[in-house]
């Protein structure tokens, strides 16, 4: 096997954090290498060093037989044959596929953009790699899977030998994931390229990779051959203990209907219809999971229930009382808590301390303020410390700003705050996105506890495993409409994928595609 990339004794020091600690690793030509690890384990940091996003503190990286120098940057990395596709796409939505792929390297005819040449170049590129796109399509109108394909083509444009994909399947449907894997296998086999995947999803890791590198707290713990390793083994290496994904759900009788959504309509930020006549009921002691590819109305659904987005029609009722026109504060007062999907923008105030973030919503309770005005600082601190302990939030102190925590721990702050309201209704969006395996297990257990205590839970997630594991009932949301409703036991993931992508629908007369 020919060596393609070598990290020798690589360390990366951020202020206060040693993100990579003496990593030595070599990656071969023509293999799919997966880098797995908990959040903050240093996977992305390592790849950012390779791709020149950050300078390394110590050690050496060689690409092929060239050493990278102190002035390494993404442009040089690409010249040396390393390309990276980030988790969040960097595409111009109003440009065509061809314009996006050739951005910054436009073919010119005199001073004018040569559209014909651009389209020809992109067609050639897409044929070379077997990634089919239409160069004339406008990127904003493409599905997420196709947008990713455009990103990959953009990365391959310079004739990359190494392709780094950061969490590529996070936003894809099972079918799209399958297509992506076909593409990866194709370029590795036919072009003898190297693909490095950064990911959380172990089943996918097992299916696609040749070798797996496990990282923990900045160190490379072990490199395994995927064929000889088991999912459980990798998971326990990642967290340093055995993680057993038990079946959490137990049968329990349904309580009364608590949350009723009827014919809900709403528009999204671009003023387009996001929800069209959505009707849902959640009983006490039940988790209803909302499946859907992102951008099909899940965000708007949660926001409407919480009063953070005006509705254009329909009603939301809590125990029979119409709360459609209420503010988030009023809705909270009536017994709803909310874990939002975008935790940095909505879920926390990054600049504020852990303790402030845990307090929000309770600041006027008599236990924390006299007459609702005078803050009892000591009690607030004590409370924060208790919560940090109870929810295993890893922080150097409750006065640290929340933004200094890792993603998983920030999510735990949100969960600790929201679960402690003890409300009968919970709206939970993407509870474990970007959260490491150890924390996922912990969060799932807490959610299940809430259900068993009799909470009515509306769970929205892009992670099908999570939805199947936790939900009693599943509904699929496609283009703002509910396309199916199932008891979890009666449907498979593959089958539900059809409802999520609009290929099937339970609604009459809409058996399209």
């Amino acid at each position, binding site marked *: 096997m020919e060596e393609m990339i070598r990290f020798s004794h690589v360390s990366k020091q951020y202020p206060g954090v040693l993100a990579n600690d003496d990593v030595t690793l070599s990656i071969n030509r023509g293999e799919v290498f997966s880098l797995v690890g908990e959040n903050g384990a240093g996977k992305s940091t390592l790849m950012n060093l390779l791709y020149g996003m950050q300078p390394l503190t110590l050690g050496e990286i060689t690409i092929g037989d060239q050493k990278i120098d102190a002035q390494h940057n993404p442009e040089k990395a690409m010249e040396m044959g390393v390309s990276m596709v980030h988790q969040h796409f960097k595409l111009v939505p109003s440009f065509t596929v061809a314009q996006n792929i050739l951005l910054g390297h436009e073919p010119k005819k005199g001073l004018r953009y040569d559209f014909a040449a651009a389209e020809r170049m992109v067609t050639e590129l897409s044929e070379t790699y077997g990634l089919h796109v239409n160069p004339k399509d406008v990127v904003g109108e493409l599905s997420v899977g196709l947008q990713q394909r455009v990103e990959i083509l953009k990365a391959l444009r310079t004739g990359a030998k190494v392709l780094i994909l950061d969490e590529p399947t996070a936003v894809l449907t099972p079918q799209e994931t399958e297509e992506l894997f076909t593409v990866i296998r194709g370029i590795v086999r036919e072009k003898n390229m190297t693909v490095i995947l950064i990911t959380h999803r172990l089943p996918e890791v097992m299916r696609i990779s040749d070798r797996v590198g496990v990282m923990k707290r900045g160190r490379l713990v072990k490199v395994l051959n995927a064929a000889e390793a088991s999912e459980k083994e990798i998971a326990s290496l990642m967290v340093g203990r055995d993680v057993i994904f038990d079946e959490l759900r137990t049968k329990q009788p349904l309580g009364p209907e608590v949350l009723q959504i009827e014919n809900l309509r709403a528009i999204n930020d671009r003023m387009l219809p996001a929800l069209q006549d959505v009707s849902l009921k959640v009983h006490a002691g039940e988790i209803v999971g909302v499946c859907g590819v992102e951008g099909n109305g899940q965000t708007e659904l949660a926001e409407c229930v919480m009063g953070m987005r005006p509705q254009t029609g329909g009603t939301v009722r809590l125990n029979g009382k119409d709360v459609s026109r209420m*503010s988030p504060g009023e809705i909270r007062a009536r017994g709803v808590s909310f874990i939002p999907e975008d935790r940095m*923008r909505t879920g926390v105030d990054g600049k504020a301390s852990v303790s402030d973030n845990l307090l*929000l919503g309770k600041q*006027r309770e008599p236990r924390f303020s006299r007459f609702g005005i005078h*803050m009892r600082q000591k009690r607030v601190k004590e409370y924060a410390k208790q919560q940090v302990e109870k929810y295993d939030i890893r922080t150097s102190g409750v006065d640290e700003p929340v933004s200094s925590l890792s993603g998983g721990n920030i999510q735990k702050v949100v969960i600790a705050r929201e679960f402690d309201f003890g409300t009968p209704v919970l709206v939970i969006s993407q509870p474990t996105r970007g959260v490491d395996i150890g924390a996922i297990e912990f969060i799932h257990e807490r959610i299940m506890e809430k259900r068993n205590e009799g909470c009515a839970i509306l769970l929205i997630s892009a992670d099908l495993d999570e939805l199947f594991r936790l939900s009693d009932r599943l509904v699929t949301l496609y283009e703002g409409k509910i396309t199916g409703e199932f008891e979890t036991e009666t449907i498979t993931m593959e089958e539900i994928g059809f409802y999520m992508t609009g290929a099937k629908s339970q609604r009459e007369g809409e058996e399209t595609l």
Partner: protein
Amino acid sequence: MSNSFAQSIRALFRLKPAQKLNREYRISLLTAVLLAFLVGAMIMLICGFDPLKCYGALFEGALGKPRALGNTLAKTITLCLCGLAMSVASKAGVFNVGGEGQLYVGALAAAVVGAQCKGLSPWMVVVLALLAALVAGGAFALIPGAMKVYWKVDEVITTIMLNSVAISFCSYMANGPLKTAEKGIASGTDSIMKEAGFTKLIPLSNLTTGLFFAAAVALLVWYLMTRSSIGFEMRLTGDNDRFAKYGGISAQKLMLWSMILSGAICGLVGMLEVFGLHKRFLTTVSNEFYFDGMLVAMIMRYNPFGVIVMSFFFAILNIGGRSMELSAGISSEVILIIQSVIIFFMAAEGGIRATLQSRAAVRKARREAAERGNAA
């Protein structure tokens, strides 16, 4: 006027708000002050003055005599209240650049009440004038506040524009309908009831019983911002209003009220100037006092206690500078240079410190790796 204009004003003025006034920052601030004095000393040397003598004259002129101290304290009050007004709004995420205008309307309202309520007891007049100033300043701040909160109109633009409106309106009133019949007053209103004016605490100085109002307000603002649940809500709203709203805080109402409070404090400053110093409304009631207060607030990262301390320091520079000019002969412009250098360093502070810190981290990692190598 475009939005990017507003953004660039924000960028120029904002100097990293919403961060803590932590130990590192205090050290940076002290360094900046020392460096600024050093720069000032160099200029004095170049101009052929003795820096020690000049600085001696500066502090002597600001603190040396009771009268000088009184003037310095009076200046501190003005700066400090303006700074607190700025801080109250900024903490909640509203950038009130319109304090100068709010100060003018407050001053005019207080002067009118002070002059018209003839038959009442002096105490009543003071209370009524105070209320008038608070209401006038607050109401004038309500306009840009409501436009920001309900229509998302950038408050930086509107407050700057409303400054001109307020100042022009007040000078029109003082030169026109409300112009006094007294001789020798160029542009001002009738004088207020004599007994209602504040008495001087230190003879011949500008320090009056208005100090007690100022102290009460400063205490109230400090408590509100740092010790109360409302301050907690304001802070979160200022940092991330979406988060505040999500958490059940009515962010819009809070922003509006903090803007009103900010305007009311500015109105109070106007009233203190009128009742303490001029005894009537004059078009020269303020000399960009609010903008100086704004700078103080920004340097101190909107920390109420810090604003009080820094106001005292700036007041020393301001009052001492004038007497330094008289006694040592050097132009007081050098004081402006010192102030600018402090602001310059504090604006660059974040970048300088981050660079130094990351270098130190790299050195530390190298050292540790070397030690590990030795141990192995």
